[in-house]
């Protein structure tokens, strides 16, 4: 798969992709929306794990230290499809949305020292909801269609370095940016009233740093038998102070616009993960991620609807024969499961998420793969007048290589 053909296919797929549908979880109204822990398609199918996954076969976006194992210029890109069925005391509804899940390129600079440069663009959060509300205030009957959209993304530059053969480090500078948008159409039953539109948006921008460490064969070095082949990884992402530029527009026959500037914070992220190959074919992974949201500020104020977030997941990958003659024996079969204590809490109840995942890694030429992953799960509850959601998340992407920047010995 050449780079040119890869780009052509990505562009064509984007053009042919269906229009992004409006609507989704009302929970995304809070904080920065749903936080997306996307480490790549392979990670997605493994329950979102990968902090401790040392591999040169894919660009691991969870831990910059893992770049060190990449020996060929590698690229990856993917799309997501989400489907959500929501149930609340007011009724039930279904929504879908679709989008680009980011692209990444990793360029090896020094194989001996594991120096690899990574460039990536990854979505960090997603806001998508569409709600209709009827209201009767002061005898004024109105209908409000409230739409939320947007989210945060991250553009990052990463660099890895392997001081020893089994120790790998990495750092990634993250530029976080994005716009959260709320659009309200206000209409009245009484035609003598003038309809109105409120258009609120906040643009965020800021910088954080992710530091990562990976240790191969931990058990061997620590003398723990049975864990010889255990690999472990740690990540720390520094807090990000985001500039928040808000623009609220109130539209009737004219437009009244009020702009304000403030700051918001994304708290630090601490993660730990392990991977363990049971045998030549079966690999197990597990991650734990912590993020303290309870004190985070949004435009200078805390949100009572947020709490600390915690995520734990496990994954397994079966690769029958990496270089087998049979195509289907070269396919990677993946599965996982996860529990996510989301940062949402409302009416005194936290919103927790459970899911199972699965996927395939279909081999392509030149160490490329077409990765398809699915996560199916549910979160929330209808108690306390909250919303319970069943979701299906699909991620489809490819990973390929190019022989760039390689030195060839001349005869």
């Amino acid at each position, binding site marked *: 798969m050449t780079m040119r053909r890869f780009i052509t*296919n990505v562009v064509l797929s984007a053009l042919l992709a269906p229009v992004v549908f409006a609507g989704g979880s009302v929970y995304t109204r809070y904080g920065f929306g749903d936080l997306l822990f996307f480490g790549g398609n392979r990670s997605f199918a493994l329950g979102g794990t990968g902090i401790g996954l040392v591999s040169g076969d894919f660009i691991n976006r969870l831990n910059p230290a893992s770049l060190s194992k990449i020996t060929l210029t590698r690229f990856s890109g993917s799309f997501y*499809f989400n489907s959500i069925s929501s149930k609340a005391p*007011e009724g039930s509804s279904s929504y879908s949305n679709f989008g680009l899940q980011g692209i990444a390129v990793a360029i090896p600079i020094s194989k001996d020292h594991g120096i690899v440069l990574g460039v990536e663009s990854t979505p960090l959060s997603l806001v998508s909801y569409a709600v209709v509300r009827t209201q009767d205030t002061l005898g004024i009957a*109105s209908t409000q269609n*409230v739409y939320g959209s947007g989210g945060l993304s991250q553009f990052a530059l990463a660099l890895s370095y392997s001081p020893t053969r089994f120790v790998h480090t990495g750092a990634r500078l993250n530029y976080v940016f994005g716009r959260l948008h709320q659009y309200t159409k206000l209409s009245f039953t009484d035609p003598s*009233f*003038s309809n109105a539109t409120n258009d609120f948006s906040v643009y965020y921008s800021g910088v954080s740093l992710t530091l990562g460490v990976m240790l191969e064969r931990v058990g061997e070095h620590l003398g723990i038998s049975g864990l010889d082949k255990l690999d472990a990884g740690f990540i720390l992402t520094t807090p990000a102070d985001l500039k928040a530029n808000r623009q609220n527009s*109130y539209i009737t*026959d004219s437009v*009244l616009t009020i702009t304000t500037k403030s700051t918001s914070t994304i708290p630090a992220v601490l993660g730990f993960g392990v991977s363990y190959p049971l045998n030549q074919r079966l690999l197990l992974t597990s991650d734990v991620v912590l993020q303290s949201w309870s004190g985070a500020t949004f435009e200078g104020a805390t949100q009572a609807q947020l709490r600390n977030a915690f995520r734990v997941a496990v994954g397994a990958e079966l690769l029958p024969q990496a270089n087998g003659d049979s195509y289907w024996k070269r396919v990677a079969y993946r599965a996982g499961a996860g529990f996510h204590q989301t940062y949402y809490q409302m009416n005194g109840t936290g919103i927790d998420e459970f899911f199972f995942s699965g996927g395939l890694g279909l081999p392509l030429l030149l160490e490329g793969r077409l990765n398809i992953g699915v996560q199916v799960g549910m979160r929330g509850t209808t108690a306390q007048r909250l919303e319970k959601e069943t979701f299906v998340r699909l991620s489809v992407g490819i990973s390929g290589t190019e022989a760039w920047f390689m030195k060839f010995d001349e005869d």
Partner: protein
Amino acid sequence: MFASRTFSVAMLACLFLSLFFFGCAEDPSPTGVSLLPGGDSPLFRVDTVFANHDSTSRLYLNSLLFSKQLLVGSYQGYEAWSCIKFNIGRVPDSLTGLPIVGAFIELHPALTLGSASTPIAIQVYRLIQFSFVSTDSVTLDSLKLFPATYYDALEGSLASTTANETDSLRIPISDTTGIRASTEGSAGTTLFEGFLLKPNFTGSIRGFGSSLASANLLPRLVVQYLHNGVRQEYYFNATATRFIADSKPGPTKIGASMIVQNGISYRPIFDFDLSPLPQSTSVMKATLQLSLDAANSSAVSSSTVDSVVVYLMYDNGALEQRSMSIYTPRISNSGRPVYSVSITEFVQLWMRPSTVLRRIVVAGLDEYNSLDRFAIYGSGAARSLQPRIIVTNSPAR
């Protein structure tokens, strides 16, 4: 090649399947609406602002030529004279040379202000030149102070006559010399420039169809010929008409009530202070309420007394060309008749920071074609009667 094809097919297949697998999005639903924070709901408030000052704009009707009516008479300070020009041309040869045994100005009724039982008396003069009386600067004072400039010979008169509201009127023309000259095109004659109708009665104003009225109301000059002992009538339609009216500098205000008058129009101007409204707010609805002072009101036609026209006035006196008028009957506010006019668009304009306008001007409907006089309580009246604007608005959070 194979891998590339595989990829392309797989991607397109996934995209295609996603349409069926995930279904389509729905319109916004109420699911989860209670989870939205209360701050996402727009605030509403209702503010009432009262007029804090009033004055009057008095206009002479400069476009009287466009009036569909001719007014003649004197009533409650109004006085109106009328001018008519007829298209007097050659009559058919069969009538040429025949004796003229009678000529009349025939008028058809349109309205009555005052009592229809008041006897009517009108004097008819010959106009020097119709164009002299058709300019906007000509007033009744002009006609009274400089009569020789505008008219001369007395051509006819109508003695005190009682006519009902629906009766047509024929005013005799006693001197038909000029008519004959015009109809037979005699050399040296002066073309007939028309007649001036001067009221010689008080107690009512009678309105008749003008040259702009419908065919059945057009004024006509009727000339009677005697042919073989039989009277034959020949008609000439009016080609131009106007009435010139004035009123004594009557009161624009009676107590705390402001006069709204058609004909010679009085337009009350009310000032409002919108500063009690939040500076950053969206106006959803604004209603102007004016309370009628029935005791000081009179009307000619029931349709106009029930209708007002509201203008927005800039500080420089210019009017915003858009206007609001109502045609519905007055509403009752605790038994008191109130004009209720939606002026949402006005107040939205008003609230724009760049707009310098603070005033509402009230006029009667159909000012140029009716004769109404009614009173509206002004800023000096009791609070419950003062003009007010009720504004429903949504302040920015």
